[in-house]
């Protein structure tokens, strides 16, 4: 099974500042990569996904992520955060041909005014 490491458990950030959430996965031949967001008291919502093609993936709410095969990383970024971005963010991976996801431990982002 794949393993996913999210390197930061808590990320405090000021409003309008940039944020980067780091994610590394265990090496494999072909993987699909995902970022999900969980707002307080809600289920998970897909933020963006990498399946193939361009290594820079754009998602909803101004987020983007870059797939780096040599570093086995899939870091999430946003150039300017809002208070409403306060949430927990999960990185997930699956092998091509599989349908089970392996999730990281999550990163809690707290945006302050």
């Amino acid at each position, binding site marked *: 099974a794949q393993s996913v490491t999210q390197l930061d458990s808590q990320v405090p950030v000021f409003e309008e500042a940039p944020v980067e959430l780091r994610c590394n996965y265990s090496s494999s031949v072909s993987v699909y990569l*995902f970022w999900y967001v969980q707002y307080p*008291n809600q*289920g*998970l919502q897909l933020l963006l996904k990498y399946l193939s093609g361009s290594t820079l993936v754009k998602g909803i709410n101004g987020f983007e992520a870059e797939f780096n095969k040599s570093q086995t990383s899939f870091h999430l970024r946003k150039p300017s955060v809002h208070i409403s971005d306060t949430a927990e963010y999960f990185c997930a991976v*699956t092998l091509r041909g*599989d349908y089970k*996801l392996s*999730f990281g431990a*999550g990163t809690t982002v707290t945006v302050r005014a």
Partner: protein
Amino acid sequence: DVKVTQSSRYLVKRTGEKVFLECVQDMDHENMFWYRQDPGLGLRLIYFSYDVKMKEKGDIPEGYSVSREKKERFSLILESASTNQTSMYLCASSFDASGTYLPYEQYFGPGTRLTVT
């Protein structure tokens, strides 16, 4: 829009009780999943089902069972609840045969926060 609903948002049960958590999806998805979410551990897969009456164990199946009698409904059963099963439980679904939804793109319900006392 895909909708995944869970029968309760909050549930309090006593040790030793039999507990049923229900999940219903409305998009004719083939695959359904049960996860538990604990702080610092992320989501861990308990069981999943890829067809009616079919099930497979996930990473942490001990103390749980599941039932899928109809395609849209997937139930998680705690035969004898224990305090270490206090957690947030999330249901998810994916993939329809027509190909509208991809097998690895999961849609989640709002979760059930279970407390066992």
